[in-house]
């Protein structure tokens, strides 16, 4: 005896409502039209993002860089900048709405994939062999052929279909002999592969891509810096080498770069199209600029500690310039000397440069004194011998993007899936040899593939001919 609780009806009603809602949601997310709408919405969203500069996510952790980026935006859009920012036009590719659309696409793909599984299983594992006679006239590709006695007809049909690489299943019953033939089984998996690849792609874009970061590192020759995003990893660059063609046109820029991670140093010449990748972090050669190595010695020949800009004291200061002719500050704490230095290299006279020095006292900049110096030759300033060696610095781009491999893999998966669906469509035939000497034949391919028309017509012609000649 089943005990009937007083709240049983309410419970059943609620369970019914939940199931109904679940079915509606399942139907909603399994709708192909939803996929089309989501694709269009994502495409429009992304397209809009190309019309406005998008704030790089890594700027959030760098106040100075963020301020610089915002200043550039204000210079470009003027008073409209704030309005655009309020509308989120500078952060479209990181917007919650875009992620919402992507998650919607993910659900849509998952439900569509799940919906297709039972039919796929039936088609590949346990196809229905015997079909009613009406079925043969419903399919677009069908034919009816007069055949010799049953066993002979079955043998002829088997031979023909096996020649065409069909896999066959027979069932014998009161209504004759039924046959199911299929080929290109792998093509039936095309949609599944496409859907799973698309899922992987969307998962990447939603969850992996935000983990990516990139930062620029400016390094003078021999300088080492720790990465902001991964402080346990240090990068060091040696002097940039510019290989030139006989006419002076640069043929290649290369810089020996060392990455020190977990106590292991990895060194490689980095050039355009050839980054150094360590622990998933790629170091790319982004650009370069002029630099000056400066050393100072006192009257006794003792090396003096120097400080370049806001850096730390060292026996050698490396001044990095935006361009030749601009000034950089260097100080010698022990002599309470502060200088602004600029230089222009003398083209065609290797190692010769014009160095300009401006003294700085209590924040005031004095008049510039320019001298033509040979690289490494001392220039005496207030009793201190300064030497200058022109060189270059490099700007490296450190990039960590865990989504790259999976995005490329899912793109390849998408391609394979689409190719299988389009070029190797799963083709199926049903046949029945009736007791009254007729062969009913019908066929279909996944989708309405134009090539199947011709294939079916050719097959019917061959069957007709061989049946007429008794298989000879």
């Amino acid at each position, binding site marked *: 005896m089943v005990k009937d609780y007083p709240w049983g009806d309410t419970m059943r009603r609620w369970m019914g409502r939940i199931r109904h809602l679940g079915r509606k949601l399942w139907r909603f997310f399994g709708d192909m039209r939803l996929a089309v709408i989501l694709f269009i919405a994502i495409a429009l969203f992304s397209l809009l*993002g*190309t019309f406005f500069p998008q704030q790089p996510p890594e700027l959030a952790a760098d106040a100075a860089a963020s301020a610089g980026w915002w200043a550039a935006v204000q210079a470009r859009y003027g008073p409209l900048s704030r309005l655009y920012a309020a509308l989120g036009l500078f952060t479209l590719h990181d917007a919650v709405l875009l992620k919402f659309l992507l998650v919607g696409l993910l659900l849509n793909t998952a439900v569509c994939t799940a919906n297709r599984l039972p039919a796929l299983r039936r088609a590949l594992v346990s196809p229905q062999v015997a079909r009613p006679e009406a079925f043969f006239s419903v399919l677009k590709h069908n034919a009816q052929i007069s055949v010799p006695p049953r066993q002979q007809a079955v043998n002829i049909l088997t031979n023909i279909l096996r020649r065409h690489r069909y896999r066959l299943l027979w069932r014998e019953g009161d209504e004759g002999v039924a046959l199911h033939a299929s080929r290109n089984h792998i093509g039936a998996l095309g949609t599944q592969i496409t859907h799973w690849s698309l899922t992987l792609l969307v998962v990447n874009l939603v969850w992996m891509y935000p983990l990516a970061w990139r930062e620029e590192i400016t390094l003078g020759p021999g300088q080492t810096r720790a990465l902001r995003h991964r402080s346990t990893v240090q990068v060091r660059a040696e002097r940039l080498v510019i290989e030139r063609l006989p006419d002076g046109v640069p*043929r290649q820029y290369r810089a020996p770069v060392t990455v020190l991670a977990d106590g292991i140093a990895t060194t490689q010449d980095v050039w*355009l199209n050839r980054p150094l990748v360590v622990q998933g972090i790629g170091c790319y050669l982004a650009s370069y600029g002029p630099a000056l190595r400066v050393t100072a010695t006192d009257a006794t020949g003792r090396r003096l500690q120097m400080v370049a800009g806001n850096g730390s004291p060292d026996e050698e200061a490396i001044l990095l310039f935006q361009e030749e002719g601009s000034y950089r500050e260097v100080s010698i704490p022990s002599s309470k000397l502060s200088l602004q230095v600029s230089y222009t290299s003398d083209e065609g006279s290797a190692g010769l440069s014009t160095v300009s020095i401006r003294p700085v006292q209590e924040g005031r900049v004095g008049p510039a004194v320019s001298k033509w110096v040979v690289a490494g030759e001392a220039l005496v300033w207030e009793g201190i011998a300064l030497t200058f060696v022109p060189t270059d610095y490099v700007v490296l781009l450190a990039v960590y993007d865990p989504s790259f491999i999976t995005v490329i893999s899912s793109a390849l998966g998408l391609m394979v899936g689409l190719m299988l669906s389009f070029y190797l*469509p799963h083709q199926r035939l049903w046949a029945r040899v009736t007791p009254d000497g007729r062969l009913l034949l019908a066929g279909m391919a996944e*989708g309405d593939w134009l090539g199947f028309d011709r294939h079916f017509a050719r097959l019917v012609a061959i069957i007709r001919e061989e049946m007429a000649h008794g298989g000879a």
Partner: protein
Amino acid sequence: MEALEGLFLGLSALALLAGVATSFLLAGENERWAWVSTFAVGISLVALLGGLVERGLWGGYWPLASPYEFVLVCVGTLLLAYLAMIGQSGTRTVGAALLLLALMVMGYARLGIPAVAQMVRPLPPALDSLWLQLHAGTLAMAYGAFGAAAVTGLLYLMRGWLSRWAALPSGEVLEELGQWGVVLGFPWMTLAMITGAIWAQMAWGSYWNWEPKEILALATWLIYLLYLHARVVRGWRGRPLAILAVLGVILAVVNYFWAGGLARSAGLEVLRVY
């Protein structure tokens, strides 16, 4: 060396011109002349290949780096598509129209691109990448096949008007040839997208930058995906498919010629223009 390359390319252009002339004036009515036309196209293709090989040997790289080289390779893939199309259907009228397109592209390469840009130059550092060669090569293959699809699409759309002057194949044959072109080009275009993304990752550390060039390439790919999907799943036929085939090539041409300028004039963010 440059003289030899010029000789090869000149021979290729002349043979192509002969191929176009014979296919338009004589081949339609005379089977022997039809074979002369195909033979001329074969010579043109071999000479073009010779010129490109010569250029590659001289420059020390696969001749796929400059716009001039890319356009020449596209001429080659259009000629390949022509020969494959003749083998596929034997339809000379469509082939003649495709040859005309190849001749126009060849004419643009030889006369439209400035002489300085045609010279063999050492590869700039940014273009010195195997992935770029693979990207450009696969893209040229795709454009050849899509060119064939667009020509048949255009003939399909204009067949009522054109049938007054020429005996065109039936709409069904044109449709089938158009589909053949898209089916042939789509895998190449997909590979071009993937190799392009890998090249961008190797060169700039970012496989996708939402640039106009990338977006137009994606739009072109989506057009052909829509074509195949609509044909296979939705059973579209005829006119809409022909329009899509033509639209795809228009987008590809816009991308080649104007994406960089378009981006600059619209004040868009451009990392590179190539």
